[in-house]
């Protein structure tokens, strides 16, 4: 394995400021994109696409958004589900009420709506910290859950409170088949991942992390906590909102508020913790892990003929998640992403450690 940065000298700071300073990483990234864009759609079965890849992509996007808030800015949120819900229902409303509203526009509108709410519930974060903020975000969760069930206009007056979308298309191209949906979600994730990466490695990203690591010191060097925190809430909830729209439109197609309940919020938080707080890559790892693990556990009995009934399997999932959360918090607070990068470090020095 030739993983070396020797001989790759940076002639300018700009080149040193690339996302992937090391050539091999750039190659790997390109390869990965090819894999994701070309190979996966070719080989993956509809099941893999609809039941694993699409949810993975969308939840990874949501986790990415949450990670900006929790991982980079250090503001905990237990109400992510609510922001997804707002994104989904807002997108649904413009989509159904305005004729010929382009799909992407609706989804982005969903994001904006979620941003507004995000900033609104972010305001307490200026005055209250940590644990208290967690409770504030829970308030958002329960309020939105309730509003989506109770306020008729949110669901466009559907008597059951469940809504659904159909005939999705972008500029005439239908978004119906698994492959189309997969690619659609993939594009969103790729674009937002890039934008997010730019933010977190830019000035604003440094402000967020500064607030996270030592808010008083940050204030002293002229960082406005108000601005830093609220932008974090805004960016985060925008991304989460868009993810919510995708979850409703692309993955479920028809949904009820329960699709965005508090369990979703916890699920996303776990993705961020396990994947890696303060790491874009981590959001991907976390999402992949949490999407795939239960499916594998469910599958085990059938694949290996191990006599686990479905109930035990899902209890097991609970226990394993719980244990892993604690494990990572204790052993590797930066989650899988850090394990990954340490592996790379080792690789750089290999075969001569120090």
């Amino acid at each position, binding site marked *: 394995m030739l993983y070396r940065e020797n001989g790759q000298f940076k002639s300018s700071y700009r080149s040193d400021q690339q996302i992937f300073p090391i050539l091999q990483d750039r190659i790997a990234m390109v390869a*990965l994109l090819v*894999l994701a864009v070309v190979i996966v759609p070719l080989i*993956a*079965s*509809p*099941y*893999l696409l*609809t*039941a*694993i*890849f699409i*949810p*993975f992509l969308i939840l990874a996007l949501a986790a990415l958004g949450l990670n900006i808030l929790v991982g980079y800015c250090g503001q905990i949120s237990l109400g992510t589900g609510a922001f997804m819900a707002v994104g989904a229902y807002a997108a649904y409303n413009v989509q*159904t009420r305005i004729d010929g509203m382009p799909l992407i526009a609706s989804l982005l509108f969903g994001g904006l709506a979620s941003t507004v709410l995000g900033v609104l519930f972010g305001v307490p974060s200026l005055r209250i910290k940590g644990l208290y903020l967690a409770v504030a975000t829970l308030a958002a969760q329960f309020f939105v859950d*309730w509003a989506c*069930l*109770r306020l008729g206009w949110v669901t466009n007056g559907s*008597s*059951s*409170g*469940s809504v*659904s979308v*159909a*005939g999705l298309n972008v500029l005439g191209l239908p978004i*119906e088949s698994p492959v189309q949906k997969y690619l659609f979600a993939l594009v969103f994730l790729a674009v937002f991942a890039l934008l997010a990466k730019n933010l977190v490695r830019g000035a604003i990203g440094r402000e967020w992390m500064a607030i996270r690591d030592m808010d008083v010191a940050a204030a002293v060097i002229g960082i406005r906590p108000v601005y830093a925190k609220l932008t974090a809430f805004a960016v985060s909830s925008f991304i989460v909102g868009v993810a919510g729209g995708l*979850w409703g439109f692309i*993955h*479920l*197609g*028809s*949904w*009820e*508020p*329960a*699709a965005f309940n508090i*369990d979703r919020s916890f699920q996303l938080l776990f993705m961020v913790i396990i994947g890696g707080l303060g790491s874009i890559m981590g959001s*991907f*790892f976390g999402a*992949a*892990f949490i999407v*795939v693990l239960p*499916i*594998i556990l*469910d*599958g085990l009995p*059938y*694949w290996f003929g191990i006599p686990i*009934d*479905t*109930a035990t*399997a*899902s*209890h097991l999932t609970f226990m394993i998640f719980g244990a892993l959360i604690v494990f990572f918090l204790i052993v590797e607070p930066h989650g*899988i992403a850090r394990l*990954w990068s340490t592996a790379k470090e080792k690789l750089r020095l290999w075969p001569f450690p120090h």
Partner: protein
Amino acid sequence: MKSLMKSLALAAALMATATGVFAQAKEQFFPLLAYRTGPYAPNGTPWANGKQDYIKMINARDGGVNGVKITFEECETGYATDKGVECYERLKGKGASVIDPQATGITFALTDKVAADKIPLITLGYGLSASQDGNVFKWNFPLMGSYWTAADMLIQHIGKKEGGLDKLKGKKIAIVYHDSPFGKEPMPLLEERSKMHGFELIKIPVTAPGVEQKSAWLQVRQNRPDYVLLWGWGVMNSTALKEAQATGYPREKMYGVWWSGAEPDVKDVGDGAKGYNALNLNTSGQSPKVIQDILKYVHDKGQGTGPKDEVGSVLYTRGLIIQMLGIEAVRRAQERFGKGKVMTGEQVRWGLENLALDQKKLDALGFSGVMRPLSTSCQDHMGSTWARVHTWDGSKWSFTSDWLQADEQIIKPMVKVAADKYAGEKKLTRRTPADCQS
């Protein structure tokens, strides 16, 4: 990303082997969505057990349907929509030809998908009320009843108690409901009825899953309604009964939908639930022949899915019925498309649409007395709307009304309107008579 790719590759590989196992010919595969965990497990479990046992029994007793063995795989949804979708996607890959989501939310999510995948959807006694209109909902089968028929029957029954529907004028009827699509689905009909008969309808939502209902019952206490309809599921039912007792609301005045009238709902309330009434689509108890066969061919062989003493309980028996109808649809389809063949989703759909279970057939199946005859058509995907009220006497359920039936005059037009609205939203056209032949 590497780790992801690896695990996916693994998953894919395993998946492949798995499907390989199930893809052999001469096997009719039934996907079983179930929830044996979470707030709804108490009711989900017996239901799921009934389904499995019936399949096991058919294989053991008759060797399948005309020689076609029946295989199944269960998938835990935990009543969660996204998990349900995942289960559906996974199991459909294994040759599913009919599916029962066991949850209103999942039903909503699957309704669009099944049409594309050509897999019929059985939602016996739940799901989308409008989907009874087979001309629009080609793939949905709310057999034996919907929330609208249920609500309608309850109002009729209460009317009888009062000595005529006209007597309902000025009465107060409260509905304590699970705050979700499941709980809200009956509202249109109840509102319709309250307009017709001039009774006041008081809606009291209970936040899911319904562990904390004090204020709901304080509201009951405040409004002092003449009757309370209970529209709950899972842990909400028993909690409601306990709170009713605690607030001293007469259980005799409480009427539950057929999802709120099973053993788990009343068992640990015991005497507290005495006098509580609920609709029921089917009998319970171990006397029917089909139950006897299950005990004989499955449980006595130590292959029973659940505890033996729960065999024949209300929801268990409902599971049996659902499974039986699914299998009978396959049988019916075979009559047309070839005996001893494995039926596709489309063929089973035809079977479901042309079910003709008269008393004779039911007796032959061992379901005499368990349920009423049922026959579906291209237009009518429900088949029949019979149900009875049963009452808890502190230790067991016993029927306290004869068979009730929903009032077509009210249901039909509502279904039509709702179905047309749906067709409009989804840009569907009603099926032609020709299409009905297919």
